[in-house]
């Protein structure tokens, strides 16, 4: 049995670049050591890789770069556990393990010709960045685009240096909110949880695909607000977080109801999961 055919064994990848996003979030630009592998690798926005920090372990991390860019893969990572802590100790040029991509991504095809509403909280913007990049690159394929993005504080917002660029895109509307503003930080936007932005949003249920990712509690409230505004269960897509050990539908940890988050998700249309007993309470 060669290593190649063993789905549990990661490929070696080099850290090309590390960019600091916030206090506890970095973006890592990776390339496979095996150039052929790099060439063959393709993914959809919303999918994730299993990253191995050798000596420490493996964790599922969503991909935050442009799916059309075949030269590199980016992961925007928050330092939250043993593996991500170890990743933060690595330097440019060092090696980690990567296997993937896994799971179902955002419904960019379904969204063609329609409006897109993105509701993101905190690190939840990372898996949605490929959506934004794709919409910008293929602007004519989609109609209105609106982003509601909330974070704990202004300092916790991701990709702020790209906001200017995004603002300028035609038919793009960005709404920002933070839970709190520390004294030393400047903030010109909304204060409050991300759902408070719903009153300012222009998106309507008509011909709109909603994509949301963030803390589960945020998604719950967003969902309630959206349903109350008449959005239906097949136009809302959520990206769920669950514990994963394999990404391959084997270890069992990520199951909710009959779904494996690693393979059937992480992106689900609400219609698909709303009747799962563990999720029913969200409504």
């Amino acid at each position, binding site marked *: 049995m060669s290593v190649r055919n063993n789905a549990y064994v990661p490929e070696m990848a080099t850290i090309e670049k590390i960019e600091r996003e916030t206090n506890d979030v970095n973006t890592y630009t990776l390339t496979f050591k095996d150039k052929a592998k790099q060439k063959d690798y393709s993914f959809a926005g919303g999918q994730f890789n299993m990253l191995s920090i050798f*000596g*420490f*372990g493996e964790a599922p991390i969503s991909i935050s770069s442009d799916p059309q860019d075949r030269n590199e893969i980016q992961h925007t990572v928050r330092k939250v556990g*043993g593996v991500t802590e*170890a990743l933060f*100790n690595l330097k440019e040029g060092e090696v980690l393990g990567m296997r993937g991509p896994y799971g179902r991504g955002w419904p960019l095809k379904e969204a063609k010709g329609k409006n897109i509403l993105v509701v993101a909280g905190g690190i939840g913007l990372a898996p949605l960045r490929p959506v934004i990049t794709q919409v910008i690159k293929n602007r004519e394929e989609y109609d209105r685009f609106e982003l509601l993005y909330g974070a704990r504080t202004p300092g916790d917002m991701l990709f702020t240096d790209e906001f200017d660029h995004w603002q300028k895109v035609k038919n793009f509307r960005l709404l920002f909110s933070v839970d709190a503003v520390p004294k030393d930080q400047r903030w010109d936007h909304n204060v409050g949880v991300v759902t408070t932005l719903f009153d300012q949003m222009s998106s309507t249920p008509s011909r709109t695909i909603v994509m949301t990712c963030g803390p589960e509690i945020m998604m719950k409230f967003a969902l309630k607000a959206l349903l109350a505004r008449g959005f239906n269960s097949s136009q809302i897509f959520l990206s769920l977080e669950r514990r994963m050990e394999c990404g391959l539908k084997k270890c069992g940890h990520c199951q909710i109801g009959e779904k494996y988050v690693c393979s059937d998700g992480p992106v689900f249309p609400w219609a698909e999961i709303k009747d799962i007993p563990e999720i029913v309470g969200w409504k």
Partner: protein
Amino acid sequence: MAEKKKLGIFKLTSCAGCQMRLLYYQHRELEALTAYDITYFKMGKRDNLENIKVDVALIEGCVTNSEQIDELKRIRENSTILATLGGCATRSSLWGLKNNKPEKEIEEKAYKDLSTIHSIKAIPVNDVVKVDYLLPGCPVGEDEMTEFLQSALVGRRPFIKPHSVCVECKMKGNLCILVAKKEPCMGPVTAAGCGALCPTNGRPCYNCRGPMIAANAPALAKEFKKNGLSDEEIYLKFTAFSGLSKVYEEVTDRA
């Protein structure tokens, strides 16, 4: 070769069995002890450096006098990673039996002149200072000690099993003596890591490793009762090695 990490091994109130596990009962002790630069280990060496910064501090034993509180705080300040070594440090273990009755009552029984006695309740280490990792066991399990020492070398978080002894017992393919023989096995509420040692050796688990986090003590107590144990016997089972742990308090609380 990078400089070795500094390791300090400190003793509070205990039987020294866990230190002995390092020095004596271990299968790979030479590797373990030479992987670190051991700066403090009174039972193992003469030259011990007080109050120096260490990368890793292992604390054996629990606090039973006020001087130990100060000592422990000093150690915490001087160490990057601090872990308990064994049951006493983790949850005061057997010495917790002293907490069973009002403090004064016990002390008056022991000493006529209380002015020279500094003994206080048996307090586990994590009630005094922040503990990074808890290594349970009486003595500390060799597997988890090894896992800890190896992971601390690189800064990995050790994998300390939080679940019940039953999981390991089943992994070994043992017959469940609680079910098959109605023996009062504490396995279902006891933290794993021993490899289900007692059931493997034909006897019910007696909880020397203390409670597992999600233990359902009342349910097991009820089962014991069904199997013919008296309330008193059940009380003894749940108090022996757990230092009157909160996890068991629904069973052990007699107030």
